[in-house]
């Protein structure tokens, strides 16, 4: 029987299957960070259990870390404690850790692919919802809670029921100036934040095939914002080319052998998905969110919607609450929304191509008066590569802050925060109330759109700028 990519990966990882219960699924790679792991290690200790496969577990420091020049003195005592506890837990268990002294430290979902740890066909988990990012390389990767982190540490397995599958097929091609970020924001706007709940998304179609590996990561990253636990893309030549020469990817003859296996990993013709949806990529324009979830999104040339225009009472009320929080009036043109801050960063959009796209817009221009703009590379390697290309100078000359790698203002667990009422164009993934700082107002956009907004001081249609 023809099978989907998800079914193929799943079947290869079933350790135990018994009627009346979920499958026991083997996990190939477990990524760990400081925020969701301390309670898991603590419980292991309390119960006298050990980490079964420290060699399949990799840790980094990202969520809490300040982005000031290193070496840093961490002033926040709880953040410092959390980082120290992670370091101790990794030492005790023999887990490899990319700490703040490491030239490979970075956001967990940036360094996994970058180091070649993430490979096609793998099962990957992390105590973090954006683990879906790794699906870009054809891995089945999903976020878990701390109790499951503990379970994986102890057993290298998880009890999981096979997920339902949703095929999102993108026909056609993205227009000029339209990016992977716009494509995924547009999709979430269409299917809603709960649109893929209970499903794993497989992204297919020519518009997906045409994306670079880093752009595919942006798409898969935000699968969770559509409610899916995972999103993936079948490996192809782009995937193989990306992995060649990466630190933890196989090398030499072993690489060629692995690559042949990766390329064979695809959904069979005629495989059945539980649901399918076709989207014309040519319909997608640059997107800007106006509300407090990523589904509240419209085109840059659009207007803030009138809550009264929503037929459903629940949606109307949600829109009213969102506009009140965002300090926006119905009917305002998106391009008339003025900004206080711009954040280019996060596991959605802080890889080298993202910074190149932003720098191309910024080059030779200046950040608008009254706007504070910062770039936070996704990893130390991204930062170093960008500096080799001179992008740091482009940003600095324009008036951007150029900072050290970490999650930073994506969730504001470090000192990078919005002040109450401040309005920010952000390349991150969540515009929830208070996400970037209590009372802060977040608009999600692509890196090029964020860069253009920093220069103009308000949103602009980057297609006109680049033309």
């Amino acid at each position, binding site marked *: 029987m023809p099978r989907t990519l998800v079914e193929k990966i799943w079947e290869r990882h079933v*350790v*135990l299957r018994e009627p*009346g*219960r*979920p499958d*026991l699924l*083997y996990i190939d790679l477990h990524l760990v960070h400081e*925020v*969701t792991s*301390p*309670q898991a290690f*603590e419980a292991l200790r309390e*119960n006298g*259990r050990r980490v*079964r496969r420290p060699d399949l577990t990799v840790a980094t420091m990202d*969520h*809490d870390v300040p982005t000031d020049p290193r070496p840093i003195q961490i002033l*926040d005592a*709880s*953040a410092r*404690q*959390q980082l120290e*506890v992670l370091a101790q837990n990794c030492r005790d268990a023999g887990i490899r850790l990319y700490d703040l002294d490491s030239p490979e430290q970075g956001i967990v979902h940036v360094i996994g692919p970058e180091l070649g740890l993430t490979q096609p066909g793998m099962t990957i988990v992390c*105590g*973090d*919802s954006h683990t879906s990012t790794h699906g870009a390389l054809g891995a089945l990767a999903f*976020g*878990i*809670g*701390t*109790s*499951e982190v*503990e*379970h994986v540490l*102890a*057993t*290298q*397995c998880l*009890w999981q*029921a096979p997920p339902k599958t949703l095929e999102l097929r993108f026909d056609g091609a993205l227009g000029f100036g339209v990016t992977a970020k716009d494509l995924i924001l547009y999709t979430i706007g269409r299917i809603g*934040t*709960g649109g893929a*709940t*209970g499903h794993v998304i497989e992204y297919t179609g020519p518009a997906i095939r045409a994306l670079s590996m880093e752009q595919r990561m942006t798409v898969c990253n935000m699968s969770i914002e559509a*409610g899916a*636990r995972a999103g993936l893309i079948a490996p192809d030549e782009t995937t193989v080319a990306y992995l060649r020469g990466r630190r933890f990817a196989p090398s030499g003859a072993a690489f060629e052998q692995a690559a042949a296996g990766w390329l064979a990993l695809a959904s069979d013709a005629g495989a059945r998905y539980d649901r399918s949806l076709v989207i014309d990529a040519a319909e997608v324009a640059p997107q800007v969110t106006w509300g407090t*979830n990523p589904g509240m999104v419209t085109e840059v040339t659009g207007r803030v919607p009138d809550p009264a225009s929503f037929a459903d009472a*629940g*949606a109307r*009320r*949600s829109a009213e609450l969102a506009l009140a929080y965002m300090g926006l009036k119905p009917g305002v043109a998106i391009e008339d929304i003025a900004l206080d801050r711009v954040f280019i960063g996060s596991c959605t959009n802080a890889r080298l191509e993202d910074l190149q796209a932003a720098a191309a817009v910024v080059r030779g221009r200046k950040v608008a008066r009254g706007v504070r703009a910062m770039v936070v590379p996704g990893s130390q390697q991204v930062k170093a590569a960008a500096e080799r290309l001179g992008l740091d100078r482009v940003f600095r000359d324009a008036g951007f802050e150029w900072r050290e790698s970490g999650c930073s203002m994506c*969730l*504001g*667990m470090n000192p990078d925060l919005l002040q109450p009422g401040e309005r920010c164009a952000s390349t991150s993934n*969540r515009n*929830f*109330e*208070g*996400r970037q700082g*209590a009372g802060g107002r977040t608009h999600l956009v692509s890196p090029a759109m964020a860069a253009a907004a920093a220069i103009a001081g308000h949103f602009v249609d980057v297609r006109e700028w680049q033309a």
Partner: protein
Amino acid sequence: MKPFTTLTGVAAPLDRANVDTDQIIPKQFLKRIVRSGLRDGLFFDWRRDPAFVLNQPAYRQARILLARETFGCGSSREHAAWALKDFGILALIAPSFADIFYNNCFKNGMLPAALPAAQVDRLFAAAAAQPGLELTVDLAGQTIRGPAGEFRFEIDAYRKQCLLEGLDDIALTLQHAAAITAFEQARR
């Protein structure tokens, strides 16, 4: 883990859709290294409003949360489940839950029960008519009972059993250590 069987208690109505885990427990409470003591962080920003449902005397002892669709969306932070439990909420009723949050509840002996939206509407109406309304959630019988009637919810049989028996699933998995080892060896 404490088994979950039947729970009777006050149901607090939280009338908002897409309540995300950043609202349930904001980031500043994620810097803890223990699971306990998160009660004060629960809905921290919204609780600054004296009119917020959990601030009202009728709901300070709430054991059940009545919510709208896609409750618990966003981050995987299990702190959201821990904070609700620390407040005293052991069961949640909504038309739908986000996957990771849903899963995290079971790991903490909490029951998230999904009901059709029309039935949740009726429970909201009942709660509005009678603040401090009590409901009974019966896991074995898969029902929710109250003045608005009796509603049946669906739940995966395995999850139900784990909750009813308060099973430690790591201990359970470790009984299969031989199968895991065999799997690892076969893949070498």
